[in-house]
Every structure is written in structure tokens, then in C-alpha cells.
């Protein structure tokens, strides 16, 4: 199959998957019964409740409700979030910015650290650094994020007092404008160094926590693909012509070893996305993940629906991009189902 055909095929399946996902999630959110609870308050009488049910079409059959939901989404209406006490679409952008800032920072940590560690270990195969990196990687895959976060808080927040929790200091937050909602970017835009440092300071611990698991996965992949590349003939050739080992590694082996690593980097994105739920709860980070956790505990179905659909679409898109990049980088990949 040609790459173009492959991409087209995948793009054609994508909407079907999105629709399928939305049906499953919608059906699931209604299995537990009517979502009316979150909208009720004690002062309401029977008539007012009936009015609410009417307003949200809760008396219609499920498929009809689904159609209402879809038409709402197409018109840019994701429903009313009981947890945020506002329309979902109104709260979403700010929370998304907070989560994205955290996820991107973690991704940067993970890619930089993971590639560096993997290279370091792979070039020293079966020696002490390699063994230590292996322990680090296997621990990363087994580490409960919620526990790791709490451990870091106990050490660096409670005992040493080196890092704060939350997203920024209130007075610095008020001092600058927030056109993007990404505090680091906002601080740079307003040219305020103190605010930038403050934003980074708040970002450091959550980003490290969230990045650990992904760092471990990337380091492991980088290590094993580098070990494989170093056994190739072209590496011997480069050594034979007298190239210093450092350059053999940097110019030849590492570049090729990065190809399989790229796909893993893409896949860790889903990992980071899920991790934000836990990291945001523990570090009091006002993002999508914490909103979702609140919504889950209080039965706020509009928010759950919006969040699950959003992450799924993002996840699908990232997977598609990763597959295409991989197919492009490595022509040996057999495309198909």
C-alpha cells in the first residue's frame, strides 16, 4: 500500500471511530440512570424538576437524547457542567491550557531525559550505567503515579520546602495579563521575568512526576534500538575510517536509533494525558484532569462526556500522526490492517 492510500484509509476510518466512541460513551454515561442529580438543589419543587427534565430532554428515549447531544456538539454546545457551575465550553479553554502546559512540560522532560539516558545506557551496554538505567526504566513502568507524586510532595514540599503546589503565586498571577492561559507563555509575552520563574517553579515538580513514567518508556526504547544500531555494519565502517567514538554515536547510530523511539514518544502522549488526572489532583493543578475527577465523583455527565470525547479524539489523532511518521521514516513497515 502506498503511504498516501494508507493515510487516506486511516482518515476515512477516523470519523467512524469517533462516532462509535461517542455512542459507547454516551450509552455508558446513561447506564447509571438520569444525570439530573447534579442539576438539582434542595429548594426545587416537583414542577421545577419536571421543567429541568424537559429542558435537558431527559424524558425522551436514549437515541433521541443522543441526537440532541450530537446536534448540540455540532452547534458548539457541550452542555452544562454542574461541577464548574457554567457551560462546559466556557470553562474548557482555560482548563485545557492548564493541562496542556503541564503535559507539554512533562513531554519535554521525558523526551530530553529519556533520549539522553537511553543513549548513555545503550553506549555502555551491560555495564553499571546500563544496569542502573534498566532499574530506573522498570521502576517507571511499575510506579503508581499517585504515590510517586505524594512522595515527592512529602520530600520537596513538606520537608525541604523547595517547591510550592498550585499553579502560580496569586499576586504574580494578578500582575500579568493571560491571553493564552499558558502561564509561562503569558509571562514571556508580558516580559515579566519574576512571573516566568514563578510559573516554572510551580511547573517543575508536577512535570517531573508526570514525566517519569514516559521517561522510563522512552529511555528503554532508545537503549534497545541504539544497542541494535551499534551492531550494524555502517557503525564498523565509521569506526574503521577513524571517526572518534563520540561522533560515531552522535552522527550515525543515534540518528537511526531515534526512528523507533519517535513512535514511542508519540504513544507516551496517551500516557501523559491519563496521568494528568492524578497529577492534577495531587498538585492542585486547575486543569481538565482534576475537573474530570470532580465530575466523576459527583456524576456530572456533561463534563465526563466532553472530557472523554476530547481525549479520545486527541488520542486517535496522535496515533494517526505517529503511524504516518513511522511509516514515512521506515519504509520497511508493512502498511495495512
Amino acid at each position, binding site marked *: 500500500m502506498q503511504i498516501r492510500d494508507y493515510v487516506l484509509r486511516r482518515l476515512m476510518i477516523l470519523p467512524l*471511530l469517533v462516532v462509535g466512541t461517542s455512542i459507547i460513551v454516551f450509552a455508558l454515561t446513561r447506564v447509571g440512570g438520569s444525570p439530573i442529580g447534579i442539576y438539582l438543589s434542595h429548594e426545587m419543587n416537583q414542577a421545577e424538576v419536571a421543567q429541568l427534565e424537559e429542558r435537558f430532554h431527559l424524558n425522551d428515549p436514549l437515541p433521541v437524547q443522543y441526537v440532541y447531544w450530537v446536534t448540540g456538539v455540532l452547534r458548539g454546545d457541550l452542555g452544562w457542567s454542574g461541577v464548574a457551575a457554567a457551560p462546559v465550553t466556557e470553562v474548557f479553554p482555560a482548563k485545557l491550557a492548564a493541562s496542556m502546559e503541564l503535559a507539554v512540560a512533562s513531554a519535554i522532560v521525558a523526551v530530553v531525559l529519556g533520549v539522553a539516558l537511553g543513549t548513555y545506557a545503550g553506549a555502555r551496554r551491560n555495564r553499571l550505567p546500563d544496569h542502573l538505567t534498566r532499574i530506573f526504566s522498570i*521502576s517507571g513502568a*511499575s510506579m*503508581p503515579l499517585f*504515590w510517586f507524586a505524594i512522595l515527592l510532595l512529602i520530600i520537596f514540599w513538606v520537608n525541604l520546602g523547595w517547591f510550592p503546589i498550585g499553579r502560580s503565586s496569586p499576586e504574580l498571577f494578578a500582575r500579568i495579563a493571560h491571553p493564552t492561559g499558558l502561564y509561562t507563555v503569558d509571562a514571556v509575552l508580558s516580559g515579566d521575568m519574576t512571573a516566568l520563574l514563578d510559573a516554572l517553579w510551580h511547573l517543575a515538580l508536577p512535570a517531573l512526576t508526570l514525566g517519569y513514567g514516559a521517561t522510563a518508556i522512552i529511555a528503554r526504547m532508545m537503549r534497545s534500538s541504539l544497542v541494535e544500531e551499534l551492531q550494524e555494519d555502517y557503525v564498523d565502517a565509521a569506526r574503521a575510517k577513524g571517526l572518534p567514538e563520540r561522533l560515531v554515536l552522535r552522527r550515525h547510530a543515534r540518528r537511526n536509533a531515534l526512528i523507533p523511539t519517535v513512535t514511542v514518544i508519540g504513544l507516551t502522549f496517551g500516557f501523559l494525558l491519563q496521568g494528568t488526572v492524578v497529577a492534577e489532583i495531587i498538585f492542585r493543578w486547575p486543569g481538565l484532569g482534576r475537573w474530570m475527577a470532580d465530575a466523576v*465523583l459527583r456524576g456530572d455527565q456533561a463534563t465526563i462526556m466532553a472530557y472523554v470525547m476530547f481525549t479520545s479524539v486527541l488520542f486517535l489523532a496522535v496515533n494517526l500522526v505517529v503511524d504516518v511518521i513511522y511509516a514515512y521514516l521506515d519504509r520497511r513497515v508493512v502498511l495495512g490492517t
Partner: protein
Amino acid sequence: MTADIPRRVPVAAPLGETAWRVRTRRWRELAAAVLANPTTVVGLVLIVLLLAVAVSAPFITEPNTPDPYQMPRDWGALNEPPGTPDHVLGTTNTGGDVYYGIIWGARTSLRLSLIVVSITVTVGVAVGSIAGFRGGRVDEVLMRIVDVFLSIPELIFALAIAAVLGPSFRNIILALAVVFWVKYARIMRAQIIHVKDNDYVDAARVIGDSSWRIYLHDVLPNAITPVMVQATLDMGHIVLVGATLSFIGLAEAGLAEWGVLVSEGQVGISAGRWWASTFPGLMVFVWALAFNLVGDGLRDVLDPRTEAR
């Protein structure tokens, strides 16, 4: 992903070699290869210890009545640090004994992982087998359903399901079962398609064996190994995800479960009470680590292509 049973058996078996002997010898070789890796052995030892704790929980600590899976509350000893008499690892802010929670938490985790893994493996293998063995339209439909399930990140999917069903440990089990079977369906289908092409399957067909017999005797045994590796890894992974869900608040409060305890202990960390979160979280880590070590070791032996050592 597409490993079949390692072909260590010589093509022409020596005279007097029965099928049974070949099989036992193969298992012995497999066991020796697995045990040659020290990290796998560490994992195995940890698993044995954890299982021993889970199984003998009623003998290690006096079961709480009426429900041993519920934390006993000692209202006269709130927030006691580790080392207190009667409370070796300290207590939580509601007087829960951390030691009791750790011991019975092992039992809770074993229950969780065993139930979820057996449900998901059964369903996944069945669906994957039907899709791979039948092929055609059945395959197409089943795999599109699998694709839809795979398009939602697993923790978020499980979170949404458990939330809808209402907060309880049983619903966490249910949610994890709904989310995790797809992996097995995928693996199994790929394996079946791969194994189906072998000459011995054609041979069985030629001598007139029924499809069901071919599936049971020739295809399934040669296709199942990657499922076993994945199941081992999932024994750890499921406890990790399950504990995350109960940490978020989807299990009953007061359940003797590691995630619940970490969440309960989280409240006290700013006041310097580190123990109630630290010990149970460590158990989740050790549990997941043990099964990851063994799962990785199995994969290296059964499918040498995945990692060049």
C-alpha cells in the same frame, strides 16, 4: 507480538520419544531459560511473598468483623506514628491500622487482579479467536468494535465507567474488565492468523479433522503464549490502575485497599504524617514491579525478537 512456541524440539525426534516426553522436556527447558535471568528470579520471589501474604492474611492479622475487607478503626489511636505498640506501621487520621491495610490490601489486590485477568483473557481469547479463525465479515465487524474500545485511553475509560456505575470496588472490577479485554482480542487474532498458515493446520484439515478440533489441538496451543505474557504483565498493571481508581475515590471509603489508604493518608502529609500514604503506595509499586519483572523475563524467553540483549 507474533511469537509461536520456540522450536527447540528437534525436527526428527529420537526413537522412543513420546509426545508427552517432548512436552515435559520442552517445559523443563523453558523453566531453565526463565530462571537463568536474575531479575526474573527476583520478581518470582516477590510474587511468591506477596501471594503468601494475601493467602495467609487471616493468620497474620486478626480479621476485622463482620467484614475483614473493611479497615478496623481504633478511635483511641488516631494519627499514631509507626512503631506504636499494636500499630507497627502507624494509624490513619480515622484510626485505621496501616499494617492491617497492607496485609488485607494484598488479598484485595489478588482478588481484583485474578478476577479481572480471568474475565478479560476469556473474553479476549474468545473474540480474537472467532475473528482470526473465521475471518471475513465477522472479523471486520469485531475488529472495528475493538478499534473503538482502543480509541479511549484506558484509565479515562475505566474512570468513566466506574463513575457511572457508582463508587464501589465491585464496579472498579467491572470497569477494568470492560476496558482490558480488547488487548487480548487483538493479540489473539494476530496470533491465530499467523498460526493458521502453518502446514500442520493444512495437514489436519486434509485428514478430515473438524474446525473445532483443529482450533483446540493445533491452533490454540501454538497461539496462546503471547496472551500468557500479557496476562502476567496485567496481573501487575490491573492492580496499578485499580489502585489509581480507588485513590481517586471510586472505592468504598474504609476498604482495606492500598489506593484507598494512600488517599486517606494524603490528607495528613502537610502535617508531617508521611506513613499512611508511603507504606501502602510502596506495596502497589512492589506488586506491579514483581509482575513486570516476571512478564518481561517471560517475553524475553518466549519471544527473543522483542529485545536484543
